[in-house]
C-alpha cells in the first residue's frame, strides 16, 4: 500500500488558505482573516485565559459525555430490542431530542444549582438522545438470521446482545456516538453561554458583546480543535471496531 496523504491535514490547510484569502479580500470586521485570529488566539493563550477554560470545559465534557454514552447505549439497546420499552419511551426520547435544551435551564437550576451540575446536565441533554435513537434503530436492523443462529447455540439474552446484536449494530451505533460527541461539545459551550456564564462561554459572550470577531473566532477555533480531537478519538475506536465491514465504497484500492 502506498503512503497515504494525510487527507485531513490537506483539507484543513486548504480551508485555512481559503479563510485567509476571503478574510483579506472581504475586509469586513465580522470576518477577520485567519492570521488575525491566530494572533488573537496567541495573545489570549499567553494571558492564560484559554488554558483554564479548556481544562474546566473538558471536565464538563468528559463527565457529561460519559453519562450520555452509558445512558444512550443502555436505553438505546433496550428500545431496539424490546418493543415495549420503545413504546414506553419512544415519544419522550424524540421529544427531548427536539426540545431546545436551554429551555430546561430553570429545571436544571432547581435540581442541580447553577454550578457544574447544570452545565453537565445540558451536555447530557444534548448528546444522549442522538445516541439512543441511532442505537435503537441500529439494533433493529440487525439481520434476524444471525440472532437465530446464536440462539440455536443456546445464547442467553445477554450473549445475543453482546456477541451478536452489538457487533452487528456497531457501524450505525458509532455513527450515533459520533453525532453524540459533536452534540456534547455544542452542549458544553451552550451551557456555558446560556446558563451560567463561565469558561469559554464567558469569553465568547463577552467578546461577542464587544463585536470582537477575532476573539470569538479564536475561541471557536479552540472549541473546534477540542471537538475534532474528541471526534477523531471516536473514529479511531470506530475503525478498530468496524474494520470488518466489507466495502461498499469505490476508489479505495
Amino acid at each position, binding site marked *: 500500500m502506498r503512503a497515504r496523504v494525510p487527507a485531513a491535514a*490537506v483539507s484543513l490547510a486548504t480551508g485555512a488558505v481559503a479563510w485567509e484569502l476571503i478574510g483579506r479580500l472581504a475586509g469586513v470586521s465580522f470576518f477577520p482573516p485567519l492570521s488575525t485570529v491566530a494572533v488573537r488566539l496567541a495573545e489570549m493563550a499567553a494571558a492564560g485565559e484559554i488554558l483554564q477554560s479548556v481544562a474546566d470545559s473538558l471536565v464538563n465534557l468528559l463527565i457529561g459525555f460519559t453519562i450520555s454514552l452509558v445512558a444512550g447505549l443502555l436505553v438505546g439497546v433496550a428500545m431496539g430490542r424490546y418493543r415495549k420499552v420503545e*413504546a414506553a*419511551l419512544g415519544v419522550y426520547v424524540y421529544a427531548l431530542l427536539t426540545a431546545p435544551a436551554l429551555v430546561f435551564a430553570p429545571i436544571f437550576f432547581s435540581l442541580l444549582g447553577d454550578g457544574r451540575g447544570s452545565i453537565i446536565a445540558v451536555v447530557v441533554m444534548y448528546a444522549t438522545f442522538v445516541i439512543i*435513537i441511532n442505537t435503537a434503530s441500529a439494533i433493529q436492523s440487525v439481520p434476524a438470521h444471525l440472532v437465530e443462529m446464536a440462539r440455536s447455540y443456546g445464547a442467553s439474552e445477554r450473549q445475543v446482545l453482546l456477541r451478536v446484536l452489538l457487533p452487528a449494530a456497531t457501524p450505525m451505533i458509532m455513527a450515533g456516538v459520533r453525532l453524540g460527541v459533536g452534540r456534547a461539545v455544542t452542549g458544553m459551550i451552550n451551557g456555558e453561554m446560556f446558563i451560567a456564564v463561565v469558561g469559554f462561554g464567558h469569553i465568547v459572550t463577552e467578546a461577542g458583546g464587544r463585536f470582537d470577531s477575532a476573539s470569538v473566532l479564536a475561541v471557536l477555533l479552540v472549541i473546534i480543535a477540542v471537538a475534532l480531537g474528541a471526534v477523531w478519538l471516536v473514529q479511531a475506536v470506530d475503525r478498530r471496531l468496524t474494520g470488518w465491514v466489507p466495502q461498499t465504497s469505490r*476508489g479505495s484500492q
Partner: protein
Amino acid sequence: MTRRGHLPYQLLTFVIFAVSWEVYARVRGGLLIPTFTETVGASVKLLGSAELWQALYASNQALVLGFALAVGVGVPLGIVLGRFRTLERFADVYLNILLVTPMAAIIPLLGMSVGYGLAARVILVAIFAIVMVVVNSRAGVRQVDPSLIEMARSFGANERRIWTRVLLPGALPAIMTGIRLGIGRAVTGMVLVELLMVSTALGGLMLEYRGLLKAPQLYATIVIILAEALLLISVARWGERKLTGRSVR
C-alpha cells in the same frame, strides 16, 4: 405485538411522567417551573388563540424550507461520502466541524452576512439538521451488502441507477433514522434562531412569556412545539412504512 398492544406501556409512562412533574412542581416549583396541570391548561388556552397559530405559521416557513434543503443536500452528500472514500477523507473534517460548531456562536456572523430575514432562518434550520442526515446516510450506505452493488453493475447499472435502486433503498432505514433525527434538530433550530437572533413567531412568544415570567404559557408553547415535532416524526415513520412496504418498528 400490535401497535394497540403498546398502549398500556405508553399510558403507564405518561402517567408516571405527569405525576412526577406535578409533584415536583408543587414541592419544588418556583416562578419558572409550572405544574403539569397549569401547563395543560395553558396549552389548551393557547391552542385557541390566533396568536399561536400565526406564530406557528411564520415559524414553519423556515422549518419547511430549511428541512427540505437539509434533506435535499444531505442525503446525496451522505451517499457520496459513503461511496467515495477518497472524497470522504477530505470532506470529513468539515463535516466534523459542522457537527461541533456551536451554532449559537455563529448566529451573529450569519445575521451580519445574510441579514435577519427568512433566508437566515432557513439556512440555520438547514445547518442544524443536515449533519444528522449526512452522517446517517453515510453509515447506511456503508451497510449495504456489496454483493448487491456488484449484481446491479453486472446488469449494467450506471452510477445513478446504483444510487437510486440499490444504495438508497438499502440505506433507507438508516437514512430515515437520520431524517427523524434531522426533524428534531430542525425544529430546535427553528426555535433557537428565533430565540437568539430574530425574536419572531414562536421564539418571540417564548421570549415574551419568559420575560413576563408566565411559566405555564412558556412551557405550553414548548409542549406545542414538541407536539409538532412528534407529529412530523410520525409522519416520517408513516412515509417510511409506505416507502418500504415493510413493517418499521
